[in-house]
């Protein structure tokens, strides 16, 4: 029987052959990081290893940590393990991590989406024996429309608001989702304003060569009436806050995969919900899993119980992996800091 390349410990996924952890949630000596979101890149490790595209954001969040970087596809030998990072398509710089030990190949997906968003390096499936996959949206009710369709909806909403003399407030997670939306906006409609949390991440990503439209950072002395027809990109926490009310007549939009569910959207009290996610939808997950050719599957954050049972029905050797990424399910996964 094939040996286990990775095992689950109380600190996270551990590779004994290379004596390292992947996205650990408690401090360890050596951490390999799939991407810079808070539930995956945590503070307190002695050494970090990540892609060169991931490091600036990680440093922005965690400070001056001891870190080494690799390029996508570059193979590193750590102990008895061969390690390489491959695009996950989740956010710029995000990776799947491939670990090979004596011919046995395991892949940790991190967070991923299969549609090429034109900003992140595009996801490509990796053949492996065991695949550790996220399944945030692992229910057959989640089907994403093409990005261009959602971009149209957002731009039309913005243009309608601008014509009606309303400011548009688009709520999205500051790292990743916000930049993806900026990338989809049509700057011809009006000026784009950004909340400081979004703009700080923009600065980091622009510095590493990402092309984003021009934005105006919202500061306390900004003349809020000087930007008619503007669209504001801000973190979800500002919805309904005094910060948002100062802009006068607003239409609010919320961009997230959870907006697929009316109940969640109504709870968010946004005028519009735009269904767009940096995670794979139902079809995306099933397609990605099949493409790896993996015999063994481990499922993390999302509807793991349900998704795992379905995969078993389909004949896969599938198991739930109780990790501490994100929320277990539901809208609070976003509140926990995961970019859904």
């Amino acid at each position, binding site marked *: 029987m094939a040996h286990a390349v990775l095992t689950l410990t109380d600190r996270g996924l551990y590779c004994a052959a290379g004596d390292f952890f992947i996205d650990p949630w408690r401090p360890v000596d050596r951490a390999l990081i799939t991407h810079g979101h808070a539930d995956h890149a945590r503070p307190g490790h002695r050494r970090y290893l990540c892609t060169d595209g991931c490091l600036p954001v990680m440093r922005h969040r965690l400070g001056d940590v001891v870190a080494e970087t690799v390029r996508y596809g570059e193979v590193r030998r750590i102990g008895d393990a061969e390690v390489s990072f491959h695009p996950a398509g989740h956010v710029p710089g995000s990776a799947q991590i491939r670990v090979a030990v004596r011919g046995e190949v395991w892949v940790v997906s991190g967070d991923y989406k299969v549609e090429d968003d034109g900003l992140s390096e595009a996801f490509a499936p990796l053949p492996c024996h065991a695949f550790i996959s996220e399944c945030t949206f692992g*229910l*057959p*009710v*989640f*089907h994403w429309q093409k990005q261009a369709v959602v971009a149209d909806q957002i731009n039309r909403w913005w243009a309608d608001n601008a014509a009606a003399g309303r400011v548009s407030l688009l709520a999205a997670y500051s790292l990743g989702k916000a930049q993806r939306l900026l990338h989809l906006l049509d700057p011809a409609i009006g000026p784009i304003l950004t909340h400081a949390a979004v703009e700080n991440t923009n600065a980091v990503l622009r510095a590493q060569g990402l092309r984003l439209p021009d934005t105006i950072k919202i500061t306390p002395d900004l003349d809020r009436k000087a930007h008619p027809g503007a669209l504001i990109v801000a973190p979800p926490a500002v919805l309904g806050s005094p910060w948002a009310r100062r802009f006068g007549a607003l239409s609010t939009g919320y961009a997230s995969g959870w907006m*697929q*569910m*009316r*109940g*969640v959207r*109504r*709870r968010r*009290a946004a*005028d*519009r919900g735009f269904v767009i996610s940096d995670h794979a939808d139902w079809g995306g997950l099933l397609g990605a899993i099949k493409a790896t050719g993996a015999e063994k599957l481990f499922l993390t954050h999302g*509807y793991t119980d*349900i998704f795992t*049972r*379905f995969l078993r*029905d389909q004949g896969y050797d599938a198991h739930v992996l109780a990790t501490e990424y994100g*929320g*277990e*399910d*539901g*809208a*609070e996964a976003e*509140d926990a800091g995961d970019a859904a």
Partner: protein
Amino acid sequence: MRRFAALFTVIDQTTRTSEKVAALAAYFSRAPDADKLWTIAIFSGRRPKRAVTTTRLRDWAAEAAGIPLWLFEDSYAVVGDLAETIALVLPPARGASDGDLSHWINLLRDMTNSDDEARKQAVLRAWDRLDTTERLVFNKLLTGGFRMGVSQKLMTRALAQATGRDEAELAHRLMGDWSPDTTSFADLIEAEDATADLSRPYPFCLAYGVEDLAALGPASDWLAEWKWDGIRAQVIARGGALHIWSRGEELMTDRFPELARLAGDLPDGTVLDGELVAWDGAAPLPFAALQKRITRKTVPKKLLAEAPVILLAYDLLEAGGADLRTAPLSDRRARLDTLLDALPQGAPVQASPVIMAEDWDRLSAIRAEAREKKAEGLMIKRRASPYHVGRKRGDWWKWKLDPLTIDAVMIYAQAGHGRRANLFTDFTFAVWQGNELVPFTKAYSGLTDAEFGQITQWVRRNTLQRFGPVRQVTPHHVFEIAFEGIQESPRHKSGIALRFPRMLRWRQDKTVDQADSLDHLRALLAQYG
């Protein structure tokens, strides 16, 4: 269906009342009459008869989506809305349809006469020709649960805008016993004779909870009555027949045979407003006694003897066929008392007594006696006020007693529906009996969204066992449960049933051993039951 689905989308995408009304008014200005009539019917709770069971719909949806039924059911538990779950799991439609709303409703109605296989084919064909929103609307029509943030009041306002008619007059026209089968848009909305239907009730005047007593001015401007815990009803005697309408616009005449004699007792052209209560000869029986009556369409003799119903009348809306609603309450009340005095002995209607008090302090002292009077508190009504259409601030106020409360431990949790899908909002609570926690009530309201979010995260991490959608959780959290009344109930494990239980406070300052006991609950029962 496109026009109606577009209306649904606009309404669903805004939280602003003005935008909803504008969208509805635009719809009422453009849609064909048959669609308008059905739209009015849908938003006033008159849905087409359910053509298929939800069990069959689930089977067909899972089959069409190519997923096992258990996965469909699990998805439904997450989404919290059956019509929406079906719309989301189905593969993209291969066709489209120009059929309007009444076309699809007629298809549903035709289905009631066909066999199971024909129904299935009709539904599958429909799903394959409708986009996701149209499917959602179609499924809502199929499953009969149409709630989309439009009250009858909003719909009536929009209809008034679109037709240029008076809103109150329209509200009156939309009351009573009609369906799209028995009328047309022209007859219902435009015909000259608005009183054609002798059974038609008036729109009920409704009250808000009192906010600021000090702002109400001198107590002498007001009239107080006990607030009874019964069924609000209009009793209509016209053309020699009697009609009893609930506030939910349900015709309940046949459920209360003891009131039938009022057809002869009351002068022709009389409409009374009041509360139906089960009556022990001197005071109302607990609501539970009345509840047994409501669920029965025909009443067995024994029940009729155990829980005889009377009307405690407090308003006179029509006398001698004339609409009195614009007359001041004090006049209406005087005429009501005169009318009731003239009734023969033993008539199943009595005046709900008027409570007079010189000042608010005295009234407050009277209110404190409400439980002994088997009432929930007081109603206070401005003596000079007309009988308004619907809920309006200013002239009628509810002044209820503070609820009874008990500290209880949460032991089970279940996810909610609709807006609360995917959140744990429905809890079962227990009190101590020795070392054992005995469940005694459920409650699902009273917390903020933020609190529900917090408790949801906690439930996920502290689930001991699952029973389908229900999770047994670690007994840890104490909640102060408020309720309006308490009754003995052999159907409940604790032997006790509460009226209107809800969560008043999350007592994070209390540990489970500080929760109340069953003995304490029994003491409340002995005092107030």
